[in-house]
């Protein structure tokens, strides 16, 4: 039961204020601004309790979204709603920025009225919303009775995320496996923690009400099949399968079927949506290895050498590689030499940033830097923050593979073979750090 929802710009000015319940007064707006946005210390907790009122906030670039309540609500629900709200806004007008919010404030209020009713979250599926909240003027008079009844049946019906009667000449389906790999490694190369969080995002342009079935190399499914089926490919598939620690699904997935057969079947929404999210921690392919070497020469000099090694098939190309080497706070000058890419000392970030556009698998590259230090009267030793890295690779570091994606539409005359399917894997770095 969200009591109200506010959107602020970076200065703490209110852009959108929608109050759903009487227990939230106008002063709540100021309370959040004073205690969170303008707080002397940066507020890191996403939940703040001020005078028995809870504020849940998320930040998108310079914009603050805060949900307010006086009741004891499920915080996860509120955050899920806020994220959904961000998705909806992005789907309607692109990037969430002050400019865009100011330009679309009527639309935002309209959306807020629709997706929150007396503080209870409602259908927030973009596809469904777009059918009755549009940006093209008032359509009310043009709507026929039939269309109106259709909207009603859709909002109240079982399949709220897809309307009937969709038709495409070409039935197409895009599937993206987006993963972000997180790592913390010791200077000696020992993995301290590593996990992959991934998302399966789909874009579907299918006619009618198709039934889809999605299959991947989930260890449990493979093992089950291995037991029932031929024994010879059990060893092969056992190596290929991955263990998923946990996963969440889009509301269209039939959870009962997943629970009983562990098969993912669903009627997809139209357009873009996120089918599932998952996390794995075992047998992760680490695309890069960072080998740091830091030597302190006296009180005024520091020598740093960093080697990166790519660890994947030579035929693949990693992109947007960026290595960030932190420098001490009393750095007074830096000389960098690198074999590949460009490296620069960025004083404003207290780091050397080394950028490489492309790098093939099974290669290595190195950078060496001399850092001059200014002697200070501060006795504190430099804390040596970890070296972090950013990259993008065209495979899934978790090892996830899409085995099949079948489409059945019994009422219309197209079959699984007629659907054009595209699959893409993208692995990105999350927090990918090596201590030095």
């Amino acid at each position, binding site marked *: 039961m969200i009591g109200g929802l506010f959107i602020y710009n*970076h200065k703490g000015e209110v852009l959108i204020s929608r109050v759903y319940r009487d227990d939230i007064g106008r002063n709540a707006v100021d309370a959040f601004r004073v205690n969170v946005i303008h707080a002397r210390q940066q507020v890191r907790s996403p939940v703040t309790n001020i005078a028995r009122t809870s504020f849940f906030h998320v930040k998108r670039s310079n914009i603050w979204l805060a949900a307010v309540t006086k009741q004891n609500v499920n915080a996860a629900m509120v955050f899920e709603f806020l994220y959904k709200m961000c998705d909806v806004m992005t789907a309607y007008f692109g990037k969430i920025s002050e400019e865009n919010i100011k330009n679309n404030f009527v639309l935002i209020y309209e959306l807020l009225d629709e997706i929150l009713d007396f503080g209870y979250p409602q259908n927030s599926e973009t596809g469904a919303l777009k059918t009755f909240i549009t940006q093209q003027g008032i359509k009310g008079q043009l709507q026929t009775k039939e269309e109106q009844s259709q909207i009603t049946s859709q909002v109240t019906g079982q399949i709220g995320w897809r309307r009937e009667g969709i038709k495409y000449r070409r039935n197409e389906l895009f599937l993206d496996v987006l993963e972000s790999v997180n790592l913390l490694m010791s200077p000696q190369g020992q993995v301290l923690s590593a996990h992959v969080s991934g998302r399966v995002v789909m874009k579907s342009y299918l006619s009618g009400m198709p039934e889809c079935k999605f299959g991947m190399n989930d260890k449990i499914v493979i093992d089950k099949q291995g037991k029932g089926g031929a024994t010879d490919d059990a060893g092969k598939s056992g190596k290929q399968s991955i263990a998923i620690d946990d996963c969440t699904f889009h509301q269209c997935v039939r959870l009962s079927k997943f629970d009983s057969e562990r098969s993912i079947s669903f009627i997809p929404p139209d357009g873009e949506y996120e089918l599932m999210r998952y996390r794995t921690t075992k047998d992760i392919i680490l695309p890069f290895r960072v080998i740091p070497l830091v030597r302190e020469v006296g009180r005024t000099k520091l020598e740093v050498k960093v080697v990166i090694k790519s660890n994947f098939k030579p035929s693949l190309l990693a992109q947007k590689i960026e290595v960030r080497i932190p420098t001490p706070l009393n750095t*007074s000058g830096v000389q960098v030499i690198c074999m590949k890419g460009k490296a620069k000392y960025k004083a404003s*970030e207290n780091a050397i940033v080394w950028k490489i556009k492309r790098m093939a698998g099974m290669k290595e590259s190195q950078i060496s830097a001399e850092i001059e230090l*200014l002697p200070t009267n501060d006795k504190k030793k430099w804390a040596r923050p970890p070296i972090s890295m950013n990259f993008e690779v065209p495979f899934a570091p978790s090892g996830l593979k899409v085995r099949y994606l079948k489409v059945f539409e019994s009422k219309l005359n197209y079959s699984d073979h007629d659907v054009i399917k595209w699959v893409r894997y993208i692995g990105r770095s999350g927090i990918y750090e090596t201590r030095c």
Partner: protein
Amino acid sequence: MPAVSKGDGMRGLAVFISDIRNCKSKEAEVKRINKELANIRSKFKGDKALDGYSKKKYVCKLLFIFLLGHDIDFGHMEAVNLLSSNKYTEKQIGYLFISVLVNSNSDLIRLINNAIKNDLASRNPTFMNLALHCIANVGSREMAEAFASEIPRILVAGDTMDSVKQSAALCLLRLNRTSPDLVPMGEWTARVVHLLNDQHLGVVTAATSLITTLAQKSPDDFKTSVSLAVTRLSRIVTSASIDLQDYTYYFVAAPWLSVKLLRLLQCYPPPEDTSLRSRLTECLETILNKAQEPPKSKKVQHSNARNAVLFEAISLIIHHDSEPTLLVRACNQLGQFLQHRETNLRYLALESMCTLASSEFSHEAVKTHIETVINALKTERDVSVRQRAVDLLYAMCDRSNARQIVAEMLSYLETADYSIREEIVLKVAILAEKYAVDYTWYVDTILNLIRIAGDYVSEEVWYRVIQIVINRDDVQGYAAKTVFEALQAPACHENLVKVGGYILGEFGNLIAGDPRSSPLVQFNLLHSKFHLCSVPTRALLLSAYIKFINLFPEVKATIQDVLRSDSQLRNADVELQQRAVEYLRLSCIASADTLATVLEEMPAFPERESSILAKLKKKKGPGKLPENVNGSAEEPAASSKPDTACWWTSSPTSRLLLLLLLLLLLLRWRTTCPGEPSSLRPPPFAPRRSDVLLRLLRFICKNNGVLYENQLLQIGLKSEYRQNLGRIYVFYGNKTTSQFLGFSTAVSSSDLNVHAKAVEPVIEGGAQLQQILNIECVTEFCDVPVLHIQFRPPSNVLTPDSVCQSRYGGTLQNIEVKLPVMLNKFFQPTEMTSQDFFQRWKQLGA
């Protein structure tokens, strides 16, 4: 000050600051600052030397970054370098950085001190000023150590510029505040005093501040300042307002200096020299006269400055307390302010009047304003002003106006602000008591007080009423009657019930003759309040009931019924239950005579200082009582919290238990053998039985102490227990000066294994003998072991008390003492899960 040339504008700094101001988010700001810091670091690191201008610019930037809240850990060296520059602006920035950023334990402090020393010696007044400001701003101990001897020299040197003298005086003042022990007193003090004669008023002002502080430290060194201050003051006061040019503030001549001089004079008693004295009186009169003149300006600054001087003059008059005419004039002046429309003025007037009221000369004059003050109390909007009005009323109260003031305060109390109610209650209670001629009035007042503001009546107040009623026979009857009437109100405060219970319990008999307040009516009235009261009050009421049984035997049955009821006998509160049980028992078994003895009327309380006064003192410093007005009002009976009232109110349960147990024991003992009480009486010099019992009981919870003591012998114990074993060290102390012969001990015990080590048969006079007892507990037991001691003191014992010489002389002494070995000494804690515990517990039940 040298004009800032155009090149000193420091464009880079301005750009940096405007960049920071334009940052959209905190992150952007941090990024900009990091960039700037890196830039400054590379500049400072750079091999080529920086010129003064850029050094100044970067140090300025660092200062700005620091003031934004970021840590700065470099640049100190550059700042110190700036100190040695010859340009004013560079030096200034250097000093600024150092006073803001350098902490006292830095290694740079020596360099800084050196630079300061150079500047002090430079004879350039602006540089000297900068250095002095820096010393004053930092004010650390190291600075004080380095310069405390130097600054006085600069201060009194003949050739020092005025502005430097001013800075030096203030700098010295600051050092004196932070490390007074380091400022040396010497021959310069005499010359500092002469600064009061200086031409330059700024120097005089600074010097006055310094002298005032130093004079508080060592008044004798600065005695000469009085005459100079008076001269200076008279010159200022009599000067035409335009004479002082720069130092005239809204037509008031040098108000700050005047105030400071008046403050300085308050450090000393009135001058003894008559001419000086008359001159000072003249000054003060002039100041008072000026206050009467119409204001020269309508601006608020003018009246503020004028009043500041006036109030300071009045406080000097009050401080001297010697000129009756001045005091009366001051009082009249304040009286005018009492009706001023400025709230601050009214507040100050009331505050000053409070101190005036304590002077014998002006007390009468203050009293003439009573109506105004009472009016202020009623109509004033600001609570702090009302508070002052209450203080003043309290201070001006004496026997002649006590009734009026107390009545006014009581009537105000009904609407008074909650924050000051308790204080008013205390004050009313004190005044009523102090100036009570007629104690019926006193009782009425206090009962009224409880009725109006019962919640704020503290324990002390009602203790006091009871003390006074008990100590004064003449009001007891009246008090009983009034209390009885007050209790008839349908809703009365708990404190009233307490007072009522106590007084009716003690003196209910005095009004019992009247059929309207017959014993039964009295009891029913009290009991009707019983259920609405808290536990301590109920306990008190139960005590009142038992007193009733004594006073009125005719209601005994009714009261016993009440005590016997389940709500009393089985009350959940231990204290109440115990009282009910004991009182019931007492009323059943004791004869009328015994009851009369036990429940005798409370004895008069010893006269002591009023506890309420102590409480008021504790609560608040001011509020002096006019002690010596009208030949000292005789203090009525007073005492702090009545000791015996403990018995009445709630005493610690355990002590009450012991006392009553003993009481009952003694009672029973006396009633069983009434024929020969003397035969059973314990020997007069042996410790009383109750003492022995008490001592034994005390050992229940402790292991060490004195177990037995009489004129000859003291037995001390030290014991330790482990599991089922115990060891007791018994110390026998010979209290006489001659030896005991044939000393032997034996321990008898029915259930315990006790092994006693043998002891020497002789104890020398004044010596101590130790015996070890080993005890083993083999089974549960209830009888404690008994220690038998036998010894023969010599015939001519010299005890501290020679009366017993003949008593003990030569006869064999037999003493039996119970050893405090109880079952609980062998108890041991054990760990048990709650499941196990409840299993066992249930088994116990079965």
